[in-house]
């Protein structure tokens, strides 16, 4: 990778914020399984996975903080719900186990495609971080895939619940690829190798064989792509209340 002209800071900040918020929200949401996952080993696995995502969010908020001169903790905790830019796929709450697996499979597969598009990017701080994130996300993708496979192949309640979850998620499934404001500048500066619409095509091609094998319905295009990272809704308001509660209990305290 070669250092080109400084990347467009505003668009870069938008990209980092959307990625950090995605990881932060799915990490917190999946951590709700701690103590109540279907079996003890899975409890540890899902909690560890959720913790990984919070680690990724911390690293991304760190980059964003450096770029904008903002405290990463303030970025994570001190915004109002409408200011978060995670995709609407993650506005669907944890739900049952099938919902969590469906949401995680759709997100992890999309996240891998997004990371690959950034891995050779021209802005070294992000490309370096992405190189590390890709290696950790491999396992996430494997684990979500293993569960998707098992639920889909178990006739009766497991498969029925998975299908129900996929139907609920369908209108928002592709929202990871909501175009970022100023995205064209990021592509022109070689921070990312293609626009989001093209990445969505890559993602569909990557999951089509899995959905085909398991006879699952492919997610349709996003119903409301303009608002793919806006208007988060009641489930997120509740989650926001949870993950900011300690911080708000004593603003400015050092924990």
């Amino acid at each position, binding site marked *: 990778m070669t250092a080109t002209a400084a990347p467009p800071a505003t668009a870069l900040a938008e990209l980092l914020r959307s990625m950090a918020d995605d990881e932060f929200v799915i990490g917190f949401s999946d951590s709700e399984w701690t103590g109540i996952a279907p079996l003890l*080993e*899975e409890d540890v*696995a899902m909690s560890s996975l959720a913790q990984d995502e919070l680690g990724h969010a911390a690293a991304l908020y760190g980059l964003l903080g450096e770029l904008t001169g903002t405290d990463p903790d303030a970025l994570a905790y001190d915004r109002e719900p409408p200011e978060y830019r995670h995709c609407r796929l993650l506005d669907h709450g944890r739900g049952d186990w099938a919902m969590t697996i469906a949401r995680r499979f759709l997100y992890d597969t999309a996240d891998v495609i997004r990371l690959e598009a950034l891995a050779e990017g021209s802005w070294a701080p992000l490309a370096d971080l992405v190189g590390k994130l890709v290696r950790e996300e491999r396992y996430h993708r494997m684990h979500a895939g293993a569960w998707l496979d098992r639920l889909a192949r*178990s006739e009766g309640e497991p498969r029925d619940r998975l299908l129900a979850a996929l139907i609920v998620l369908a209108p928002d499934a592709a929202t990871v690829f909501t175009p970022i404001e100023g995205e064209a500048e990021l592509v022109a500066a070689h921070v990312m190798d293609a626009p989001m619409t093209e990445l969505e095509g890559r993602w569909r091609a990557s999951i089509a064989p899995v959905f085909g094998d*398991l006879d699952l319905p492919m997610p349709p295009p996003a119903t409301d792509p303009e608002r793919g990272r806006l208007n988060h809704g009641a489930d997120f308001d509740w989650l926001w209340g949870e993950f900011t509660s300690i911080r708000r209990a004593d603003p400015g305290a050092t924990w």
Partner: protein
Amino acid sequence: MRPKSTPAPVLEAWEVFRQEKDGDPMRHGGSVMAPDAELATHYAREMYGRRQESVRLWVVRRSDVHDLDDGDLLQPPLDRSFKKPGGYVMRDKLAAARAQSGQAKPKARSK
């Protein structure tokens, strides 16, 4: 086409062996419960590797382990002291052999 349905999974025990660093022996770490080898491997990774404490794991279905705890075979009652190497000192014999061949004493293996 609908995928072939699989039978309801049954949890069973898997034994996990771990290697702490390259060159170390595989040591028994513990066990996990899982319905199949793939998830057993994922759970082994979480239980015995998520803090970067292992460089390799072996995951073995417990029922595939051949168990031998037969007292007649392992703890026979008669005197077995003649099977033990105590009293047979190698040190002097090795030193003599080395002197004869002109080889130096090998250094302790680095860890």
